[in-house]
């Protein structure tokens, strides 16, 4: 039998196939580009690399198509569709899964890009050869190309407007896979005259299996923790892992990326500089030439980045319980970019230990300044890091005149929590100066500057920061210590190990906002 027995109606349908194939093909390319720039950073490089590789892979596919014999064209086309469905459809979920587990992620990513590109490159030449019998060549080329370009336009419009915001990367990829699989199975009907009986059944069974698999993944994707976090966090989740200590989730949007610990936002790459400048410089600027610095928490390395701006620094000791956190920059290049790979600086020593245990150890080293960047006191294990006991132990880590700065949740949202930390420090004998800074993604944020000795009334930024700070200047620095009316002090209990008053306040106050 020849293709000549196909009537006109299926021919229109075949053009529809071209449209679908073309749309999906471009979506895979966009997906790979987005994923690469999300995960590896440096979007210009990633996008051009992905596009280049993808196009060359398509060329390779087209070239391979020559070796397909005429009699097996139809079967081959359907097999290729099922292949694209599988590799392309599962690309996003598999790449996300691989990111946190595979060391040579780049190789995996570009391997995927090449495989998808070659398969997609096979599609059109095969299809054109199938249709060749029916149309004269010029007609064929112009129509197929027209549908191909329409498909590309459709993809590039739908991808940013509908697919990513509505479905997310994972389900977009699964959806395209499903479409490709449907085209494949559909082909077993449209091209039936060209297929032999025996192979037909096996093709249909395989097609059904692929569709089944992708459907399950699509439905399950909803329940996958990643996606539930995605909908809760509102952005594409690009990395998620549960360490022994906490759940780490990185999300990405056009504006940048965010880190969540146990569902609490730690920073947004857009405005973290405000937070970290406000956290670090008030403690370091009063010190003549700061040399030995202690950072507690702050495993993202962003506070350390600010500290390393002072040329006098000799050593920074960072104590963060979670190695998953302090090595995140190694696995997630955009964070290394943002933190200037601060934790890899030879002056920095990273210690993965509970800061409570580390601080309490006898005869430990002493420091010129301590920057405390613990998560908010949302549970008892963190609450202990804000107790009189902890601050008392910390005194043994201080050189004369040492300054301490502490991040202390929002004084606007959680005034009792904020002032409880102030009172706790005072009860431990520290001089305390509360301050605040607006950080758009956090809101009004609270900090405390504390010292065992006097704290100067006026602060001045070090000359080393001139032209480097994006948020602070001398006026803003001092202005942070002026508290508006809605941040007035409230009376609270003192946070102790045996009452964990702070955790209770925090629960109560943030509970209302959640």
């Amino acid at each position, binding site marked *: 039998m020849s293709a000549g027995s196909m009537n006109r109606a299926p021919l229109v349908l075949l053009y529809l196939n071209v449209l679908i194939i073309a749309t999906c093909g471009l979506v895979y390319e966009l997906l790979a580009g987005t994923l690469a720039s999300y995960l590896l950073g440096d979007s210009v490089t990633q996008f051009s690399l992905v596009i280049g590789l993808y196009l060359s892979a398509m060329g390779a596919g087209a070239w391979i198509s020559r070796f397909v014999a005429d009699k097996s064209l139809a079967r081959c086309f359907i097999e290729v569709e099922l292949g694209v469905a599988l590799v392309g459809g599962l690309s996003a979920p598999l790449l996300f899964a691989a990111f946190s587990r595979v060391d040579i992620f780049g190789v995996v990513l570009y391997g995927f890009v090449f495989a998808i590109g070659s398969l997609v490159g096979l599609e059109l030449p095969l299809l054109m050869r199938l249709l060749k019998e029916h149309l004269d060549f010029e007609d064929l080329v112009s129509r197929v190309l027209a549908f191909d370009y329409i498909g590309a336009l459709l993809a590039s419009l739908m991808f940013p407007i509908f697919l990513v915001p509505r479905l997310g990367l994972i389900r977009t990829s699964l959806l395209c896979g499903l479409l490709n699989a449907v085209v494949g199975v559909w082909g077993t009907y449209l091209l039936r005259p060209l297929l032999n009986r025996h192979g037909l059944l096996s093709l249909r069974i395989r097609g059904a299996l692929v569709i089944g698999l992708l459907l399950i993944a699509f439905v399950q994707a909803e329940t996958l923790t990643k996606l539930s976090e995605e909908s809760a966090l509102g952005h594409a989740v690009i990395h998620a892992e549960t360490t*022994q*200590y906490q759940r780490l989730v990185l999300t990405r949007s056009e504006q940048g990326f965010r880190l969540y610990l146990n569902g609490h936002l730690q920073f947004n790459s857009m405005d973290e500089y405000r937070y970290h400048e406000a956290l670090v410089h008030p403690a370091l600027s009063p010190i003549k030439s700061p040399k030995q610095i202690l950072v507690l928490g702050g495993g993202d390395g962003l506070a350390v980045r600010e500290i390393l701006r002072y040329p006098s620094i000799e050593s920074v000791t960072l104590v963060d*319980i979670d190695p998953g956190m302090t090595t995140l920059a190694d696995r997630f290049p955009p964070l290394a970019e943002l933190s200037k790979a601060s934790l890899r600086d030879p002056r920095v020593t990273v210690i993965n230990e*509970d800061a*409570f*245990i580390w601080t*309490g150890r006898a005869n430990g080293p002493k420091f010129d300044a301590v920057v405390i960047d613990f998560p908010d006191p949302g*549970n*008892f*294990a963190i*609450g*202990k890091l804000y*107790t*009189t*006991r902890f601050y*008392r132990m910390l005194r043994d880590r201080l050189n004369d005149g040492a300054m301490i700065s502490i991040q202390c949740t929002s004084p606007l949202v959680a005034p009792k929590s904020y002032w409880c930390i102030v009172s706790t420090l005072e009860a431990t004998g520290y001089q305390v100066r509360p301050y605040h800074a607006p950080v758009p993604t956090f809101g009004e944020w609270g900090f405390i500057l504390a010292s065992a000795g006097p704290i100067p009334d006026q602060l001045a930024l070090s000359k080393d920061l001139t032209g480097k700070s994006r948020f602070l200047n001398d006026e803003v620095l001092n202005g942070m210590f002026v508290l508006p009316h809605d941040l007035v002090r409230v009376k609270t209990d003192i946070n*102790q*190990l*045996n*009452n*964990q008053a702070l*955790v209770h306040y925090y629960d109560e106050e943030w509970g209302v906002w959640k």
Partner: protein
Amino acid sequence: MRLSRRELIALMLGAPAVATGCSPPPVVPLHGELFGQSFDIGHRLRDGFRPRPADDQWRDVQVAIVGGGAAGLSAGRALLQGKCDDFVVLELEPVAGGTSRSEKKGDFAYPWGAHYVPVPLADNVPLIRLFTEMGVVESLAADGSPIVAEQYLCRDPEERLFYQGEWIEGLYPATGASVDDHVQLKAFRELIDTFAAWRDSTGRRAFAIPTSLATDDKEIMELDKLSMADWLRYEGFNSARLHWLVDYSCRDDYGLSAETTSAWAGLLYFASRLRAPGADHQPLISWPEGNGRIINHLAEVVGPRLQTGMAVTQLTPVTSDRGDFVEVTCFNTQTQSVTGLRARHVIFAAPQFLAPRLITEFTERTKRKTDEFEYGSWFVANLHLKDRPKQQQGYPLCWDNVMFRSRSLGYVVATHQAGRDYGPTVLTWYYPFTESHTREIREKLLKATWADLADVVLTDLEVPHPQIRQLVERLDIFRWGHAMIRPKPGFIASQQRREARHPDGRIHFANTDLSGVALFEEAFDHGCRAADEVLSMLPQDRV
């Protein structure tokens, strides 16, 4: 006869546990050991083991203290403070501490028995002094009540209860409690408050710790005739939840159910820990190794005078022309050698049931018997976990974790007081033999093997922590035979108990069982008192 796994679980955990405990295979692929008091020596003494030291193996000492538990070591410290340093503390076990002993393995220290002491009230001055010496008490408030260093107070979250499939805060099974339940709980607390406020004509409290500070007024002592459960019913309390809470408290403190605990002892638990009516319970002091921390401190104070592995096999009062003294025969359990001490005084800090066995002609001379001193047995297990049980919901892991339906007392987390909240830890699991364990059952249980007992422990803990078997790396069990004095109704007020503390000539008595309740404060109080008795007699000796 060995018990089958099913029988053992049924005996220890009750019928419901058999149903849940049948499914998993009994093979427990983990390590551990079964420890116990040196039964050998105990039995040998009972069977008349009376070695005699060779004539050249005698030596003189001013005071010999028999037993290096909390009471004996406290007595030693008190002697030193009274400027008497010529004494020895003879402890039969290789480790001092008795029922307050603890262990250290690798990174972890954990108790084998006692694990906490409530913050003493202002009137317990000697104990406040001890705690000050240890750095536990930092200063005194204006009213003399101690201010305890924060790190030694039990860290919040303190306790939780596994009730109806969920962990809830506190020990009261509040989920689904009716208004009447709450009314009764409140009324119960108010009644306890009236006891806290009660004073006798000389100003003594109804219930105080040490009990030597409390009244002996008839109105209060009468309570000893009732059981705690009877008292609850007598006062009109019928809330099952309240009965559970009280029963749990009795099992926890005395290893007896509320039905067999004297109401006096039951009320002591609740009322003695209130500073004033309406006040919160006194906070608890605890360390990773439990009261083993106090033992270690006392042992350090006593120094080389403490001799472990030394079983006292006989105490014989002697009158001679060189003066009166007591012959103390010691058997070194390591070298098997026998030595003798001629002690001017003896402080007998071992349990009373041993007095007639060790002291020559004790009954004939003192006309005293000790048969009313009854002791309960306990199992204590220490589970070394490679990680903590995962938990999605409910109140988080606390210091003390209790399971409502269990006959065990649940477990205490050894790393809690160290501030270690992640990763490997040690859980100390407690199981008292209450009166429902007849003598026969008790004998059977004491014969159970390590593997069978380990399985019981895991079956019990599997209810709240289904993955516990995957987390445990090592499980050691301590079998305490005569662990705790039982304050059954009538015992506290009994003549036998009240007279037991009186010296037998130059032999003075000090052990917590003299109070009828097993508490560190009592052991300490008796140790101090016995030392005072000795110290007051020393000047006469010199004449």
